[in-house]
């Protein structure tokens, strides 16, 4: 007993509360910026969903009105209009909602799959682990952006669903790798070994015992993925492989800056969306940082 305790040394003075949630809460209370970001994010996200749902008729919003091409911010359009004479504010709201739904969908799909694979590999090890690690290694070394572009050109019908699936196909590996390494060290811990000797079902051990201990790290990973996904979508839009016009997204809005003159003269068509992304990303990152600190005092690479 003495020997084991030695390792943790002085930490024993501080009784860490057992649940991750309390740690997270404490971490947020300590970091005002993260707290502010969190509140802002929640308010903005809720606001956007409610506004997009109640306040905006998408059909009306997407109605091209040529005479209003690049209308300046003013009475008719609060933040001006884009090339098709469509209201920027409405598009940011709907676009933000779409981008977020997409990012959330990708995050969830990759998260669920990645966590499942990671847990199974980390817990069972052996050939299953070997197999998946080879697959993951493969995914990490292939030129992802290129293959994503090729996939997008190949799909017969390019919809939001197709986009989400293509992105998910490539993005699950990071989560899987992270969760695997954590699950690996976790499953070597005494409590798991003890549980095993007691004859507890593997599934129960994984879901009831290991998973909760990884929850905070998974939350962090997912928040950061979320931020990354918004970025990828934007980039693809710029290269001309973005979502169809009928689905406004933050990416398409920002991509309209692909011409130096629009960039300069019609700043309202892209700048608000770009700032919006920037603020969202900053918020998400600050929240993510706080979560990360809560999850692991020795910070991981971001």
């Amino acid at each position, binding site marked *: 007993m003495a020997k084991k305790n030695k390792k943790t040394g002085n930490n024993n003075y501080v009784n860490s509360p057992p649940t991750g949630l309390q740690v997270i809460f404490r971490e947020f209370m300590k970091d005002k910026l993260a707290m502010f970001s969190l509140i802002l994010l929640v308010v903005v996200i809720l606001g956007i969903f409610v506004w997009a749902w109640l306040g905006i008729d998408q059909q009306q919003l997407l109605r091209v009105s040529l005479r209003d091409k690049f209308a300046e911010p003013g009475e008719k359009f609060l933040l001006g209009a884009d090339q098709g004479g469509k209201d920027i504010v409405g598009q940011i709201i709907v676009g933000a909602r779409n981008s977020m739904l997409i990012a959330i969908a990708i995050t969830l799909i990759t998260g669920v799959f990645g966590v499942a694979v990671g847990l199974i590999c980390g817990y069972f090890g052996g050939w299953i682990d070997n197999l998946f690690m080879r697959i993951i290694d493969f995914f990490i070394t292939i*030129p992802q952006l290129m293959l994503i572009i090729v996939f997008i050109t190949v799909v017969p019908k390019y919809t939001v669903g197709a986009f989400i699936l293509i992105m998910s196909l490539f993005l699950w590996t990071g989560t899987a790798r992270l969760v695997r390494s954590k699950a690996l060290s976790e499953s070597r811990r005494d409590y798991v070994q003890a549980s095993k000797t007691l004859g507890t079902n593997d599934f129960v051990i994984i879901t009831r015992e290991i998973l909760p201990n990884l929850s905070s790290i998974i939350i962090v990973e997912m928040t950061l993925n979320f931020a990354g996904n918004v970025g990828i979508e934007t980039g693809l839009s710029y290269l001309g492989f973005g979502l169809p016009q009928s689905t406004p997204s933050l990416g398409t809005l920002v991509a309209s800056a692909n011409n130096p003159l629009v960039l300069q003269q019609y700043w309202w068509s892209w700048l608000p969306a770009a700032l919006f992304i*920037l603020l969202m*990303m*900053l918020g998400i990152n*600050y929240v993510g940082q706080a979560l990360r600190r809560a999850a692991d005092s020795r910070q991981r690479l971001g």
Partner: protein
Amino acid sequence: MWKTIVRRFLIMIPQLFVLSVIIFVLAKFMPGDPFTGLISPQTDPARIAELTEKAGLNDPWHIQYMRWIGNAFQGDLGLSYTYKRDVADLIGERALNTFWLSLLSVFILYLIAIPLGILAGRYQNSRLDKTIVLYSFVTYAIPTFVLGLIFLFLFGYKLEWFPTSGSVDIKYEAGTLRYYWDKFYHILLPSFTYAVLGTTGIIQYLRSEIIDAKTMDYVRTARSKGIPMRKVYSKHIFRNSLLPIAAFLGFTITGLLGGSIFVETIFGYPGMGQLFVSSISSRDYSVITALVMLFGFLALLGSLLSDIIMSIVDPRIRIE
């Protein structure tokens, strides 16, 4: 050490094989073919059929694949349909451009990121640290092309500090000093843009490495020797924290290759990334497949390079 390298190369083979099958099949699934754009009403459909047949596009994919891989082993990557040139030559020309761009980007990237990362880690939680972290978040959040366009607009057109497209001005005689300077001058702005955007990862990583290192036992040992803090940082903390960054180099290069698609498009720089995008729209299969394979190979090489660098700089994994 040589054994490890050889072993790693052997592992690469199945990976590249799988990648080659995937990209080959995908390329075949792409709608349209390289001859679509060439036809005119005077074109005899039989002539198109003849060209398609000659190019071997009518065979089942696995036959085409075997032929392609066979040729590839002999160094023949086929002919670009649009450029009518040997793919190897074409890519070779572009690869050199991308290589210089990436090299300078890496250089500037480390030039910016390492001091910032060190400062942030050294003075953790200070105002300086917070500013640096904010900077790294902001550059992370700005889409590449937005920053690229702003730089292009500002430094290229408004201030006219840098050329705005191409890789070298035609007025300089190839081989002269002025010519190489001009090449350098052309990649400066794209590299800088690129470097600024790439710093986030390294700054964050270096910062947390340093913060971690500060609590390490060997740092305590060093401090117990009574040497000044400044020296503890430079001789113990930084040295150890920079180690994984050095190992990052391989991956950084891989990452840069992916991002070259954006930067080269924005700055009209004729490199491989731009070639890829234009080949996608012209359905130049042989170029697309060759580029994906090359990038895949380089990525693998990058991770190998990382391991090698690591084994050189880290005595713990140095294999004698």
